[in-house]
């Protein structure tokens, strides 16, 4: 496996400046991972290797942290992300039907990304907007009181399919 990052890649510079800002402290790991995921959209192993080396943390500790938090992803998330809340309130209000509808229309299950890397489906336990249940976060935009039929239309519009 190629574990080195290109030094000319501007994304590498963004990460190294974040590392510098955090003074290479080991306890800044999660902060740095947040930044890295914002830049890349997910966390590729070479990036993790770079971070673990810079912060003097064991590779296994970094991987353990990434795999523990659902926020972090080791796989590309797709150009458009659709995060369906399956917290108690949203579940009662029909989050499962939304997921079923999405699977019907886009043939994607939670955690999967479409082959053309256009759309990724994720689930989360409560995004903190229970009053709007059922809630879906489409491309970082919270959408409440979802009706599954209308919503798949909205998704298609967002993705430029209509």
């Amino acid at each position, binding site marked *: 496996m190629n574990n080195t990052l290109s030094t000319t890649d501007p994304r590498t510079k963004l990460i190294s400046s974040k590392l510098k800002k955090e003074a290479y402290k080991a306890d800044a790991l999660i902060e740095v991972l947040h930044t890295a995921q914002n830049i890349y959209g997910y966390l590729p*192993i070479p990036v993790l290797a770079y971070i673990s080396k810079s912060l003097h943390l*064991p*590779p*296994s500790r970094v*991987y*353990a942290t990434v795999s*523990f938090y659902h926020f972090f992803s080791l796989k590309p998330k797709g150009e458009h992300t659709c995060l369906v809340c399956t917290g108690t309130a949203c579940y009662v209000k029909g989050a499962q039907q939304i997921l079923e509808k999405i699977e019907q229309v886009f043939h994607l299950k939670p955690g999967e990304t479409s082959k053309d890397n256009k759309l990724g489906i994720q689930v989360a336990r409560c995004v903190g907007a229970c009053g709007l249940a059922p809630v879906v976060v489409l491309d970082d935009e919270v959408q409440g009181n979802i009706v599954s039929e209308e919503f798949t239309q909205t998704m298609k519009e967002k993705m430029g399919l209509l």
Partner: protein
Amino acid sequence: MNTIHVNINNIEIPTTADKTILDVCREHKIDIPTMCHLKGLSDVGACRLCIVEIEGMNKLQSACTTKVADHMIIQTNTDRIKKYRRITTELFFAERNHVCSVCVANGKCELQNLGYQVEMDHVRYPFLFPQCEVDTSHPWYVMDHNRCIMCTRCVRVCQEVEGAHNWDVMNRGHAVRIISDFNTPWGESTTCTSCGKCLHACPTGAIWPKAIVQGQLEKKPEIIEELIEKRKMHDGF
């Protein structure tokens, strides 16, 4: 340090406040089963076998992570505790694929002995039969996730004693696994020093040396404590 008195199983025991309940019990030959505890390593209270009843507390406390306090009244072997210990043991067996008869640790396994100790005659829970890998990539050792009970003794011995931190725990819930580096094969590890301490720390047959057949495994978990003692001596000079 001031002497305090605790009452364990209706016996008054003088001790000091820097000790855990487990320390005091072991000193006085009061039997408490443990899995994740290994003398010399830090305690995490993960296996929940050392649970004890403390008067005035509703919840059961893990003896390895609870410090003794003056006038503490502790019960270590009530029916309630025995019941929970048995449940915990059965869950250990149901969680992964433990087949004693073909295991290298057969007869010398801490989990097997625990089964006898809590008088487990069958498992009342459905077995999960998870798909687990057997990592044979290391030139000398094998990591068999089927036999792992997630006590994390290997993780702690690698981090605290060897200082290599090759091991860690990934994911959570049912999906937890011990990993080496970036979830890469053990043999490709950049941090492992092949010292073999994890092998001696492992309570089951999950980590074992190659070229060993069924029931032939010899483990020396006490070697970890000896190592730490010797290092302290060395620091003193």
